[in-house]
Structure formats: C-alpha cells, structure tokens
C-alpha cells in the first residue's frame, strides 16, 4: 500500500464534541515552516489571468470526454472518487470519469509502461516523491493554463510550490499525511512505560531506545516495527536524519550533505535497532510490507509501530481500537516526521486535458478536499481548511496527534523529497540503507555511498 492511503470509515465521530488538543497556530505554522523551506527551491507561478482556463477545449456543461482516474488500491478512496465523478457528471452530463485502481507492485514500472504505450490513465493520483520524475520527463503535463489567476492563493505555499517544476504547475495538491507512533496499551503498561502527553514531552531517541528495550523484554520478541513498504519508501527514514540536525542535501538541493558525523550517527542509530533485534530483520526497507508490519503490531510481537495515519482503519480491523493508541514520534535535537500525501496530475496520454484539469480542480476545491480528508483521514492542504477545523469521521483523537505531529515535518526535507531527481536519490537511499540495516555495510561506508550515489544521481 502506498503512502497516503487507508480504508473506509464506518463510524461517524462528531469531532465537535472533542476538545481540540492542538493549536491552530501550530497547524498553520506548519504551512509557514514548509513554505520557508520551499522558498529555497522553485520560483512562484506568475499569476497573469483571471480566466479559469486558457484552453479552447470546452470545460462547461457542454464538455464531452471519457476519462480514467487511477488511484491507489484503497477502497474508501475509490468510493470517494466515484462519488466525485458522479457529482461532476450532474453539471457535466457528457463527461464520464471511470475510476480505476493503480495496480500494486512497482508504480514506476506500471506508469512508465502505460505512458510509453500511450494508454496511461488521464488523471493519476501520485505522491510528492514521485511527481518530480514525471514532471521532468513529460509523463505528466503542465497545468499552468488551467490554474491561472488567484487559483493557487488558497493552497499552502509549500505544497503548491512542491507541485511545480521550473515554475510550471504539474499537479494539484489534494492532501497530506504523516507518521506518528502506534502503541499497544497493555504491552506498554506491562513494560512500565508511560507515553508522552504532548509533543514537547515526546521521547528523545535515547529514551525511545530504552523504551524499546523494555518492550522487547515484555513481548519476548521485538520492540517495534517501522512503516517501510519496499524500496520506494526509503525516504521514510529521513525524519531521523533531520531530527538529529542533519540533512540530505545542502541548501542548493544538489550537493550531498549526509557524509558527516551527524549523517553517520543517524544511520548508525537506526541500524542499531536491527543489530540489537529491537526491530525484526524482516522489517527492512526492501523486505517490509504493510500486511506483515501491521500483523507484527496486532499480534503483540512488538509493542510499538511508527507508521502513518492512513493505516488506522487496517490496524483497527486487526486489533481492537481500545487496545492501542497513538503518541508522538521520538525526537532528538528537534522533532521531525514524514512527508506524505498526494497530488492529482494529468498524464501525457490524456486527450482532453482541459476537462481532466477541470475535474481535478473540482476534486481539490475546498468542499471536496474537506469531504475527502474527513472521510478518509487525511490532512488538507488549503489555507482555508486548517486541519483542526475538520470533523474526522472516526479516530479523531488519534488524528489530533497526527495533525500536531505534521507541524514537525522539516521544511528542507519536504523540498528535497519533491525534487525531480528525488526518484533517483531514493534508489540510492534504498540500496545503501538496506545494506546497512541488514548488516552488510557499516554506517560510515553507507553515508559515503549515499553521498557518492547522490552525486551520480543529480549529475
């Protein structure tokens, strides 16, 4: 399962009854923090027209098109997109939008092959980490002519800038998400561990490791599992680098910055979790999968699981919701967490790009973004939709933690992960970190190999 996906909600949870445990200022601060980082990257899109579309293709009630939208294999998300397609058809009777599942397995293999054959879906749901590659090679088309005027004004600056390549918009941000720490209440109680009550009190990495040791003694097996999901998710390790004060690239977004004391320390800290069998060896970058990770947590093989908000429904199915809860990510010199989420983009195979872009704008407008995030447990990316204003359909207490944790996503990390070259960088990360975490290479060699690999990747 790719980042930013989860299963449908079945329980309505009136968020209004829950006192918010986070600050709106903080949530908006996240936007500001990311914006600061993104400002290091790409120039803003020039606003030059009040027209909603510069295309001659009709996009109003007389528009005609048969489109395909492909999204991850998450039933609830697919249901939501079906609803949006039906709603859109009411005002565009000659536009039919078929929703299909993006096949599991290697996204790049599937999407590039479809693009090469000219049969890619018209609209693709794609992650921040993936879009750069396809914006760069022409797999997804620029949308500038369809998002003119002040269209971008309501999007959080960091996300809007992350959707651009050389100042040209290649996708419209739909939502974000992040990581926090799942814990088994009984196991932690038996281990004598108290969970942090606030973000400020989050465990330090040293405290977290002590907790893992105690939890391992209680489970008799391991302490935790981490939300790796194959080589395409190696970037999920990066928050540990950034929370130690390190970074992957210098501010020029080209020069590697990991081959130093902090980089080696961050790699070695995570590798030590494997060496000391606090994480199962099978939970490696290349070896992990969602089902096994959730199973380890639900069966009590581990007491802690660091993973994203979108799997809460799966976790609830595997273990009774009253038996687990969410707390914050550990921190070091600063707090940090994962950048998740998706954009909607128009592929180069699309024959009706204006209609496709119009539908994307419909899905990403304030009303539908709110519905999607509340129903499917995501975080919105519009300024007019602060996450603490949403009434999540379930697990609202847990979502509150994720919303607060989202304020810690490092701005520089977000900028790096949305670079066009990040796909190649991530391959380097997956290869070298997996070698280290499986005990085939020490942290010093790993940091140097990542640095050398990045030089090759961005050259």
């Amino acid at each position, binding site marked *: 399962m790719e980042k930013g996906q989860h299963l449908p909600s079945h329980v309505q949870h009136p968020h209004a009854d829950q006192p918010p445990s986070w600050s709106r200022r903080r949530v908006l601060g996240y936007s500001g923090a990311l914006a600061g980082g993104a400002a290091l990257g790409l120039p803003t899109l020039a606003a030059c027209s009040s027209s909603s579309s510069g295309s001659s293709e009709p996009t109003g009630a007389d528009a005609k098109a048969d489109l395909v939208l492909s999204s991850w294999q998450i039933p609830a998300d697919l249901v939501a997109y079906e609803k949006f397609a039906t709603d859109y058809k009411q005002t565009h009777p000659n536009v039919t939008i078929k929703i299909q599942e993006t096949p599991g397995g*290697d996204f*790049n*293999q599937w999407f*590039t*092959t479809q*693009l*090469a054959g000219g049969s890619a879906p018209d609209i693709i749901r794609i992650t921040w980490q993936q879009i750069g*590659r396809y914006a760069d*090679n*022409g*797999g997804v088309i620029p949308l500038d002519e369809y998002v003119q005027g002040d269209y971008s004004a309501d999007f959080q600056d960091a996300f809007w800038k992350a959707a651009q390549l050389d100042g040209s918009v290649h996708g419209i941000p739909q939502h974000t998400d992040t990581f926090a720490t799942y814990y088994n209440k009984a196991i932690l109680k038996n281990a004598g561990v108290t969970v942090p009550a606030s973000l400020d009190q989050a465990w330090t990495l040293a405290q977290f490791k002590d907790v893992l040791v105690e939890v391992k003694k209680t489970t008799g*097996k391991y302490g935790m599992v981490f939300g790796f999901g*194959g*080589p395409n998710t190696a970037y999920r390790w990066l928050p540990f680098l950034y929370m130690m004060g390190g970074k992957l690239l210098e501010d020029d977004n080209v020069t590697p910055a990991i081959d130093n004391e902090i980089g080696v320390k961050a790699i070695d800290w995570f590798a030590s979790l494997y060496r000391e069998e606090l994480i*199962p*060896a*099978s939970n*490696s970058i*290349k*070896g992990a999968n969602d089902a*096994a990770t959730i*199973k*380890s947590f639900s069966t009590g*093989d581990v007491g802690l699981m660091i993973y994203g908000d979108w799997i809460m429904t799966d976790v609830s199915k595997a273990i009774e919701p009253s038996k687990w809860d969410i707390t914050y990510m550990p921190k070091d010199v600063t707090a940090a967490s994962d950048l998740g989420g998706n954009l909607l983009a128009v592929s180069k195979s699309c024959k009706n790009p204006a209609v496709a872009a119009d539908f994307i704008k419909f899905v990403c407008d304030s009303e539908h973004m709110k519905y999607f995030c509340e129903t499917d447990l995501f975080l919105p990316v519009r300024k007019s939709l602060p996450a603490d204003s949403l009434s999540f359909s379930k697990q609202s207490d847990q979502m509150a933690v994720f919303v607060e944790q989202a304020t810690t996503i490092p701005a520089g990390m977000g900028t790096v992960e949305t670079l066009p070259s990040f*796909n*190649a960088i991530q*391959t380097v990360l997956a*290869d070298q970190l*997996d*070698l280290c975490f*499986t*005990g*085939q*290479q020490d942290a010093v060699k790993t940091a140097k190999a990542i640095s050398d690999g990045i030089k090759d990747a961005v050259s």
Partner: protein
Amino acid sequence: MPSAETWAPATGTTVAGPAPSRGRSTNRVPAAAPWLFVTPSLLLFGVFAFAPIVVSVVLSFQDVQTFGGGEFVGVENYSDAMSKPLFWESVRNTVVFTLGTVPTSTLLGLLLAILLNRRLPGRGVIRSLYFLPMVVSGVAVSLIFAWMFNTDSGIVNATLSELGLPRVDWLTSPGWAMTTVILAVVWGRIGFCMVVYLAALQNINPSVLEAAQVDGAGRWGAFAGIVWPLLAPTTYMLVVLNIVFSLQAFDVIYVLTGGGPGFSTTVLVQYIFRSAFTDGKMGYASALGVMLVVVLLLLTALRNRLAKNLDEDS
C-alpha cells in the same frame, strides 16, 4: 540392407518416390502451401520476438528513457555496465543461482523419475503431484515460500524450534536468502525434470536392460553402463534448458526477496528490470539484455554442438 524405397508397400507407393497420380491437379501440393502454414508463426515470431530483439539492440546504443527519443551514445551503455560493481555482483549472483539450481533440479528430477518409473501404488497420482509445482504460478509459489520461511512466524522455523534447533534467518540474512530462493526454484523445477527424464526412461528398450542382466550386470552397472549413456541427450537438453531458465529467473526472486537483503539475491534479469523501470534507463537495460541474449545464444550453440557430436558418436 534394403533401400528406403524398397520398404514401400507393393502398391507401388514409395516412401521417397512421388505419389501415384490420378490426375494432375488432385495431389499436387501448391508451392504456396508451406508458406501458408509457416506465415502465421513467422508473423508472430517477427512481431513479438524478433522485432523487440532488434529494437533492444538499437536501444542498447542509445541514451533513452522509457518514453521519448534517444541519443546515440555508441558502446557507452556496455562500457558503463563493465564499470559498475552492481553489474558484476548481479553476474556473480546469477552464476551462484545457476550453479545452485541446475545440478540440483536435474539430479533430483532424475532420482524421482527412476523411482516413479517402477510399479508403485498410486504412481500416476504421485507423478501428477510432483509435476504440480510446474503449473502453479511462480508468484503464488513465492508467496507461499515467503510465508513458510518467515523468520518469526514461518512454519519452517516453528518446526526447527520444536526440534530444538536454532531459528534460521531464511529471507533476512544475506547468507541464507540465496539458499531459500534456490530451494523455492528447485522445488518448482524438479517436476519438469522428472517428466522429461521419465519419458526418456520409458524410451529405453527393456530388452537392452534384460540383456545386461543376463550378462551379469548389477543395477548400478546397468544404470552406469546403459541407462545413463542413453539418457545423455536428455541430460544435455535439461542442463541447457535449466541454465536458460536460471539465467532468465525473475518472478520468484522478485516476490520472495526483491533482490535483497542488500543485493544478495539480485540476479541479472532483476538488475535489467531495475535499470529499465526503477532507474528509467532503457538504453542501459537494453545493453544488459543484449549481453544476456548473447550468452544464451552461445549456450544454445554449445548445446547443439554437444548434441550433434553425441549423435555422431552413437
């Protein structure tokens, strides 16, 4: 010894001679007839096999992504491969994988075939059971193996623990992962080898073996002196086919280990796939593919030469 023509029946029809003619047009084979039979196959081969090979050769001299135009770079993709440690590691892994799978599956297939060539109760069912893995999807086999060999919850380690033996990191240790992959592939391939050997064993004239027995040959003597030499063409064919299968292995490794831990099970075809679709380097991946095709062609030529020499000797 009579010539082939004299073996023909007395009706006047000969094996090598022309058929009797009742009329000029009735029995004449039109010159175009062979082409009508061959053309569909040629077309299919041309479109789905020959053309992609030619395109791959062309792409191997270009710097080209999955889609869009390419730029001619000469032999740069080939020289790049030679300088990349991962290429050589994948070659080394391919050799280890091939050495681990080919002799094992061939030998076990032979042993099973000898066993099931005897009169046994339920022989047909047993033969079918052994062949079953051959018709099961490689992906399904891999998923079952991944479950069985899971370090923490797999049935194999559970059994070892019951027996008081230490757990083995079947899929998570670089040292063991290749062994596990080889086990999965051999398990799937034994049935194929068994069926081919079984057919060859049943083609051996029983009177030859009876004659050997009369001459005082024991079981081992009859096997070593008569059966094994008569199985030699089959063995050659199986060895070459198994080498080709092993060089092309992908699905089991892709599902079971993804080439890891690290690169410990990354074989050549996996490296080609990764270069093409993960790295988006179609030209480089094509160069790797062309190199693999050349190796396979050389192996096939070697096999043909050996088979020809064997025929001449016999």
